[in-house]
């Protein structure tokens, strides 16, 4: 069986990360080690023969063998995210194939380069796989996650990220709230801009490898700003989740 053949996974856990985001952990009969940043394709089939597919980044690290975690944001009127959020329970089965994607990945034999991760909303998912891999594999690469979200209730993986940052001096978590910040918040409270990126880079001891993931507007803007700050194109990898805006 090839990693690109369809297989049927079983949902073994569902966690609610935010009011609009759930993580589905699936055990797979044919699990293949992935590289952090890769995704699976998920296929839904209706009784009348209708089928549709969507891609979901792998949130779990390759160290979590035999299963994968997919973190799915509920999109208003979304066909697949709506079904997953409303129609899927522990014990249900889902058809999927992967791991897929050879570019937006943090190399398996990770180079020592520092990591600058910039996420908007659910764009944090593939970056979380990198951070979890870094932690579980004990990789020394200094890392910064700059995470842009609209409101406090939308911070995916908040507790885990804060714990990771508290336990590891080589990892810095920077949050920016674009609409509403928590009470007493002294940190960033606007969209990612040049000054914020320069500060994020300054936490790192050298030129970083950058991974940027989120809505198109954020990714376009951040990638251009990083270019402007003199980072070479090869050091900037991007993934855009669907629509414009954000």
């Amino acid at each position, binding site marked *: 069986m*090839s990693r*690109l*053949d369809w297989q*049927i996974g079983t949902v073994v856990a569902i966690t609610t990360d935010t009011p609009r985001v759930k993580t589905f952990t699936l055990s797979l009969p044919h699990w293949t080690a992935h590289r952090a940043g890769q995704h699976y*394709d998920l*296929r*839904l*089939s*209706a*009784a*009348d023969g*209708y*089928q*549709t*597919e*969507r*891609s979901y980044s792998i949130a779990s690290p390759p160290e979590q063998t035999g299963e994968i975690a997919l973190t799915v944001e509920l999109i208003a*009127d*979304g*066909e697949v995210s*709506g*079904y997953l959020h409303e*129609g899927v329970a522990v014990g*249900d*089965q*889902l*058809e999927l194939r992967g791991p*897929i*994607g*050879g*570019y*937006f990945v943090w190399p398996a034999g990770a180079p020592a380069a520092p990591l600058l991760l910039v996420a908007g909303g659910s764009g944090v998912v593939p970056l979380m796989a990198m951070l979890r891999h870094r932690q579980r594999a004990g990789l020394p690469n200094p890392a910064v996650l700059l995470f842009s979200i609209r409101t406090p209730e939308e911070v995916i993986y908040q507790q885990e990220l804060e714990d990771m940052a508290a336990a590891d001096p080589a990892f810095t978590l920077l949050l920016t709230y674009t609409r509403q910040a928590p009470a007493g918040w002294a940190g960033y409270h606007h969209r990612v801009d040049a000054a914020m990126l320069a500060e994020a880079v300054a936490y790192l001891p050298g030129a970083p490898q950058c991974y940027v993931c989120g809505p*198109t507007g954020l*990714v*376009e803007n951040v*990638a*251009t700003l*990083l*270019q402007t700050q003199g980072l070479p*194109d*090869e050091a*900037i*990898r*991007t993934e*855009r989740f*669907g*629509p*414009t805006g954000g």
Partner: protein
Amino acid sequence: MPFINKGFHAKRPTGGAHKLPPGQYETQDFPVLTAGPTPRINLANWEFRLEGLVENPVKWSWNEFNALPQQSFNPDIHCVTKWSKFDTKWRGVSLDTLLEHVQLKPEAEFVLAFSYGGYTTNLPLADLRNGQAFIGLQYEGKPLAPEHGGPARLVVPHLYFWKSAKWVQGLRLMEVNKPGFWEEAGYSMYGDPWKEQRYGSDDDDEADPSSLRR
């Protein structure tokens, strides 16, 4: 027995007269998918080249290229990341028009499109002819935006959209089929949405290039 997700059904009717390839969904947006930052291209240095297995390589500047006859195209487009978009409105130069300017060597069978920023993708030459492909310069009546591949992108609507190289800089005519950027990364050598050729393993027969021809 085929696998069925209980309780799942299509959420909305799609397309009217249009058809969706298997696994795709319709979007009204124009999503952007790119591996890295958008290249910034200076029109003063822009050029488009036809090279490789041609008797007379040609090169157009931006002004020369824009002086070529242009047409409107309204194709349905299909991205391997699952979205399809119906009835997109483009203006550009047909590949038939461009190919009139070169004399192909008889062994020219495949094309490698190459782009500013280093992107490449491969296609059979036959798929670029007879009104099947064009270089898009305008989208919805405006110059094509940089994030969508402006100033100029290849558009080959009958194949998955990664074959429609953004920021295209030229086409290299070749005798053998060589994988481009995503093809090297495991994507299909041909990319027919109707056969759902997303990845190399979806190709009828990866080893036999003749099976990649239509």
